[in-house]
């Protein structure tokens, strides 16, 4: 009965970008803990990586320090690592996500494809909703939504 186009379409998030940098540099920025904290955290956050064992089964411990002093532990395990091509990690702390990042060389540029798979649609919606609520943007979202609905009419 469920839509069977893809059995993950309602619990995944995909972002992709063609980056203006060669694949070895993108790989370095992604795989070297000294680099990651320079871009990983959201605006206003800093981060500390206490462990990053980039190999299948290896742990990755990253702590995000929020602007208000709150620490957010991000515990992950690498599942698959193909240098300059692919990284698969499982975010084992909440929310549970299986992330697959592929690096595709395009001359001097790199196409980065980032796929995040949640356990279920329920879980995905919960995360998405909690994220919005945390941001305190619930009202704005509702306003925006009303605005969009009005545009459609």
């Amino acid at each position, binding site marked *: 009965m*469920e839509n069977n186009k893809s059995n993950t379409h309602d619990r995944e*998030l995909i*972002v992709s970008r063609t980056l203006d940098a060669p694949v070895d540099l993108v790989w370095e920025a992604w795989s070297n803990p000294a680099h990651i904290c320079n*871009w990983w955290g959201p605006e206003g956050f800093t981060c500390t990586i206490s462990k990053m064992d980039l190999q299948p089964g290896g742990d990755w411990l990253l702590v995000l320090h929020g602007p208000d002093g709150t620490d957010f532990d991000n515990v992950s395990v690498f599942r698959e690592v193909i240098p300059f091509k692919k990284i698969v990690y499982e975010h084992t702390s909440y929310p549970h996500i299986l992330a697959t990042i592929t690096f595709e060389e395009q001359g001097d540029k790199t196409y980065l494809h*980032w796929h995040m798979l949640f356990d279920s*649609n329920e879980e995905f919606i919960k995360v998405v909703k909690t994220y919005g609520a945390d941001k305190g*943007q619930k009202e704005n979202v509702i306003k925006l939504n009303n605005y969009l609905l009005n545009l459609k009419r």
Partner: protein
Amino acid sequence: MAQKISHLPKPHSPAPFRFEMTYLIFFSKNICASKYLHLYLQAYTCISMKARRDVYQAIADPNRRAIISMIAEQPQNVNAIAEKFDVTRQAISLHLKILLDCGLITMKQKGRDRICEAQLDKLSEVSVWVDQYRQHWENKLDALEKYLEKLKQERHGKQ
């Protein structure tokens, strides 16, 4: 008689006090009011239900998602929907009730049939949330892009 109903204030929650007052005034004026009181109560419950239920709750259940995608293609009558699912009639009725309360479907009586129609505008509420979350990840890519630019410049400078 029917006109009298319009004298009632529009039900909005929470207003039990106002409701009781209206009920007393109305009831004292018209002995048949109880007939309409029932309608009024129904409307009142419906609105407070709507406040409690939201679109996320509606799509939290796989059967309800299946019902929505089924009637999104074309409106269907309740019996046709119930036949296509492997659950009891009562379960389907309950799912439809929840979808109705959440505003994701409307139900129209057509002769003997009750036709359910999907109201998909409501679903965009979810996609707005998802877009917002997606932006969080897009920001990460923005930051990576910026950082790569910085790295390139640094290395270029050294050469």
